[in-house]
């Protein structure tokens, strides 16, 4: 049994793909539908970031529909960086909602578009921007603040 903090990386890619579709449709949809889609996506991000990746709706879809056909993954990944990335996605989605909701459409478009770019990169080439940011953020900490391995 994998430890609770490990996840199937293929599920992450599928979730990123679903996120990409939702955000892409949100960009071209009529405003009311845009708000609904962004709200749904925000909830998905929130569950993944704040509760558990496995309980995220997209992960549940993957687990029930896709994974049974694939069999176990060759490797699993630590859940912490993707959860951080979900939190970043949540932030962008909330900003987008605020933008569209308060009539600052440019902000709504910009935030949605950036979240979409990140999701697309994750879904297509498996690039996790949150993971890449991790070391850059750690560099700023003073020496000696290293956590135990």
């Amino acid at each position: 049994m994998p430890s609770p903090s490990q996840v199937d990386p293929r599920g992450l890619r599928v979730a990123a793909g679903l996120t990409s579709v939702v955000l892409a449709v949100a960009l071209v949809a009529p405003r009311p539908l845009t708000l609904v889609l962004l709200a749904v996506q925000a909830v998905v991000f929130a569950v993944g970031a704040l509760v558990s990746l496995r309980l995220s709706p997209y992960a549940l879809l993957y687990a029930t529909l896709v994974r049974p056909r694939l069999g176990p993954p060759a490797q699993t990944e630590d859940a912490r960086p993707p959860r951080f990335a979900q939190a970043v996605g949540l932030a962008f989605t909330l900003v987008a909602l605020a933008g569209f909701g308060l009539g600052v459409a440019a902000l709504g478009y910009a935030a949605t578009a950036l979240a979409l770019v990140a999701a697309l990169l994750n879904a297509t080439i498996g690039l996790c921007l949150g993971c890449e940011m991790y070391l850059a953020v750690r560099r700023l900490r003073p020496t000696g603040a290293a956590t135990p391995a």
Partner: protein
Amino acid sequence: MASRIVGVVTGLFVLLGALLLAAVLGAVVTRRNGRFAEATQQPAPTDPGAEVVTAQEIGAPLGTRLTLVQLSTAFCAPCRATRTLLTDVTADLEDVAYVDVDAESHLELVRRLGVMRTPTVLVLDARGVVTRRASGLPRREQVLAAIAEVNPKT
């Protein structure tokens, strides 16, 4: 009604822009992965511009010809793949050492060398001078080419 059409058209433009940006970034990152930057000169360890890594810093002896130092973070799938590849490539090479180092417990080294991404692979010559480096998961032929380019000790 007209404003709805304007909204959809605007959304389409933004969507196309996002797709284009994702494509460009994806291509740039994919190309950068595993690219061992050309060294324009072979500095001596005492040259002011030289980046030197000591055996003490990495906790292992340097290779007699080369040392490959990989900087990894704890949860980094490409780091694992890079470790598998480099272990395999260096297994039969007696004069090339390979060390996988945890970036988080070597932050001084990370900052000094300006390492921004993991995995980063440093190619050290026999004196510990950094002659080449690459970030991201390299392909086997990229590693072999980088190893072959560093002059053997005479």
